């Protein structure tokens, strides 16, 4: 491992570039932002290549004690955080490219806000100090508020307010819980807190407070209502980053804080998560089915996908959690891609009404191809990223509760219904409308965005081991932490014939067993 402070650099580059964007003029701001985000992408990929799989749990640690008095500037990542950081740095240049032509006013400020968003996202995933985490977590509201409010659609002000206040209300309760945790454990160090045993009755309250915040961020039914509004009003790139990374902060919070820090409460209140997830999967899928607005439809599908994530996480086993993480990564790429697909045709026709389109396969074949790929990835077709995540998480959920798995699986069927229905209405059918006929196919800039997204979606689907390997050890740690509290399952899963390869022994056997498992699912 080289001595380069990777994480600080990842934070500093966009921060400096954000300030520069405000001063260099509109035209240059785009290039500054693109350059900085590409540099960050390269840096994060170098970091990934240097990440030792199976090495220390926390790598690239940086610690400046006492810099902020009672709390520290402590950074460090494990495999889970690494993947989410790479997801953020991967999506950011694409977002900036996606806004290259569609954003025409106050470009400098826009680029600065996106780069600020990147700082915040990396900070959330890299922070190893509870208060530092909270500062980053909450700071994300400010740039997103501006992005929705200034560059959003007709009803942007309402959506910006709703986004800000809704998520703030959730977050503040988490802050009180954090204060109580610091008072109890006497430290703000996240790795220490992850192995600290809080009193069981205290855990319940802390869990509920964290849940209030993370469930809103995730978002889970019934506190998801800010998401469709925010997505519909946000500019294309804003939706991409919102669905791509911001929602993942919720999932990250579950697996980083709630599950390892409050294992007993997690087991005790598991039913809440399962119940809300089941409702969300079915209900939001049905709601998505009847939408006439493309962005709203994809927003509701996000809620449904995130419900599979929460259920998978609370399965408390290796497949469930790994699957949930892959769903998060896959959804990060695929939903960003879908929002971009919407953006492409929105830029041409300036409407999100599904009925205004139709027959795009005729005049936009390349677009239709990519849209098809991402639709399939969203549905979870084998060979795409969606399949790996959904298969693993539902396998994990089944191990925990067969009923939850049953309900969640109907979500996948409904998912296929609403996505294919959307695709049929937009891409197939007769090309009758004159303005639709006049729409040109993808331009080189749009190709440049579609290709990396498609490549990653396929890569994750064909060889998920690249993404599973870095997180495997960390998931095992979480599973081991949860094991004493884990409730009995109703599924009575028993291992298959070759007894030796059974993955019931959660602890040390699991990594090898998992590799086999993941490979076998292709």
């Amino acid at each position, binding site marked *: 491992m080289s001595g380069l402070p990777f994480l600080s650099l990842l934070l500093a580059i966009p921060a400096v570039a954000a300030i520069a964007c405000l001063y260099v003029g509109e035209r240059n701001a785009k290039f500054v932002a693109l350059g900085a985000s590409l540099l960050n992408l390269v840096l994060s990929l170098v970091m990934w290549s240097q990440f030792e799989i199976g090495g220390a749990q926390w790598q690239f640690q940086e610690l400046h004690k006492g810099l902020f008095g009672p709390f520290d500037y402590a950074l460090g990542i494990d495999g889970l955080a690494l993947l989410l950081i790479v997801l953020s740095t991967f999506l950011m240049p694409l977002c900036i490219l996606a806004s290259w032509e569609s954003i025409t006013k106050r470009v400098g400020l826009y680029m600065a806000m996106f780069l600020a968003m990147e700082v915040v996202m990396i900070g959330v995933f890299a922070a190893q100090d509870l208060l530092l985490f909270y*500062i*980053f977590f909450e700071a994300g509201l400010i740039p997103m508020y501006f992005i929705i409010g200034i560059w959003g659609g007709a009803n942007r002000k309402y959506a910006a307010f709703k986004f800000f206040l809704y998520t703030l209300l959730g977050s503040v309760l988490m802050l009180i819980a954090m204060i109580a945790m610091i008072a109890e454990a006497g430290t703000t160090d996240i790795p220490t807190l992850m192995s600290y045993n809080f009193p069981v009755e205290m855990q319940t309250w802390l869990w509920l407070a964290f849940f209030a915040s993370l469930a809103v961020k995730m978002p889970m039914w019934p506190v998801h209502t800010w998401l469709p509004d925010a997505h519909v009003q946000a500019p294309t790139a804003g939706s991409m980053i919102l669905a791509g990374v911001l929602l993942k902060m919720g999932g990250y919070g579950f697996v980083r804080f709630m599950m390892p820090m409050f294992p007993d409460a997690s087991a005790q209140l598991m039913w809440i998560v399962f119940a809300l997830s089941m409702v969300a999967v079915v209900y939001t899928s049905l709601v998505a089915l009847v939408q006439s607005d493309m962005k709203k439809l994809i927003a509701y599908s996000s809620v449904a996908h995130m419900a599979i994530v929460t259920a998978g996480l609370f399965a408390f086993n290796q497949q469930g959690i790994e699957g949930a993480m892959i769903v998060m990564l896959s959804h990060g790429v695929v939903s960003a891609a879908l929002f971009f697909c919407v953006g492409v045709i929105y830029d041409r026709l300036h409407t999100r009404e599904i009925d205004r389109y139709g027959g795009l396969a005729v005049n936009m074949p390349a677009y239709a191809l990519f849209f098809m790929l991402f639709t399939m990835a969203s549905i979870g077709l084998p060979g795409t990223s969606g399949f790996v995540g959904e298969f693993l998480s539902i396998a994990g959920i089944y191990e925990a509760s067969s009923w939850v798995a049953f309900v969640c699986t109907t979500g996948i069927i409904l998912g296929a219904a609403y996505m294919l229905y959307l695709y049929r209405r937009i891409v197939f059918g007769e090309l009758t409308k004159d303005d639709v006929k006049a729409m040109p196919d993808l331009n080189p800039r749009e190709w440049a965005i579609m290709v990396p997204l498609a490549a990653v979606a396929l890569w994750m689907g064909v060889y998920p081991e690249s993404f599973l390997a870095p997180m495997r050890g960390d998931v095992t740690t979480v599973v081991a932490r949860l094991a004493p509290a884990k409730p009995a399952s109703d599924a009575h899963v028993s291992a298959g014939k070759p007894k030796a390869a059974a993955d019931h022994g959660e602890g040390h056997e699991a990594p090898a067993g998992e590799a086999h498992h993941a490979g076998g699912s292709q």
Partner: protein
Amino acid sequence: MTADLALIWPELILTIGGLVTLMLGTFLGDRQVGLYQLAALLTLAAAAVAVVALFGVNASVFSNTLAVDNFGGFAKLVIYGASAVSILIAPRFFAGGMRAEYPVLILFAALGMGIMASSRDLMTLYVGLELNSLAAYVLASFMRSDDRSSEAGLKYFVLGALASGMLLYGISLLYGFSGTTDFAGIAAAMGGKLNPGLIFGIVFVLAGLAFKVSAVPFHMWTPDVYEGAPTPVTAFFASAPKVAAMALMTRVAIDAMGPAIGAWQQIIIFLALASIILGAVGAIGQKNIKRLLAYSSINNVGFMLIGLAAGTQAGVQAVLTYLLVYVVTTVGAFLVLLQLRDADGNYVESIPALAGLSQRRPGLAAAMAVFMLSLAGIPPLFGFWPKLLVFQAAVNANLVPLAVAGIVASVIGAFYYIAIIKTMYFDDKSEVEIDGSRNIVEGSIITVSALWLSIVGYLFIPMLTVASAAAASVLF
């Protein structure tokens, strides 16, 4: 006695400086305002140096009526700083109407506030408070030609007199039932069995002080006075006297009534929650930005009172940190207001007129956004830090329900702060042309305070922790 004089250098300097400036004004007339301004600033600087020189001294002077300690010192430094800024920003605002009395009145008010922060006897408390208040009444009505200013002065005076009456009644009860006006003596009396007389005394004294910090339900004067008073004076009212009154309230609560915490804690909790909620809800409908900032100050005082309600050293530390950050933010916000003049040179005070400010004056709008988000306590802005400390103190003092209620109510407050940002950034440009003229002094104060309140402030936390701990520890 002579030895005591050596320990009250800050007060002596302010008295002499104030009198000299007054004499200069009498003999040289109103034309030399620059000179008086300079004299007043030098006086404040010298007094601040004297405060720093007395750092670490922990003494009681003049038969235990005045405390010379770090707690008072911390408050005085903030007070002198805020007073200096209010003197700096005045000439440009009053243009030709600036008079010699302005810096003099500020100096005497600062003197009174210093005494408030250091008093450890009910009599000195009252003397300091009235010295400050009388100067403040005149300052509020300083624009003689403006009806609103006169109205503000009168309103402030009448309601202030009422509050003083309540305070005096409380003081007389405390004296009557404890037999002394000395804080230590009162504390000793409260250590025994609490009788109704003492409890009534506590209630009335706290009510009188709540008026001074404009805590709900004694806040009614605040929006009107803030709106009517000339903007530099409003900036002064919103900053320095808040520090003095909050410091005084803290000292009375901890030093004089410490043993009776069970009796006053619930009063403070009520004041805190009522201020937070009413300050937040009341601000929502406001169209005038000075009124809005008045409600914002009510709201913020509520958060400070949460720290006081904890009644611990951490709580007092949180109050002091909060005061400092709050003063910087508020003064900054008022300075931004002072930059907003329309084409005719009139000051813009209505919120709709701010629409689209980010396109006319991006720097100014950005600074205002920083101040607003900081007042709302949204990280990464520094206003988050004192809020965190206050809640931490409350949680550690087993006041979790109070902390939860307070923090949930803070979301209501966030609404109107981000509404200002909405007006400046999201709305289309308003009709009102904002004059583009800039002032180096005011501009640099705005820049420095906005920078400090953005992420830079976090680097000062270790320093602030040491300073506030040194100040708070003398009360325990």
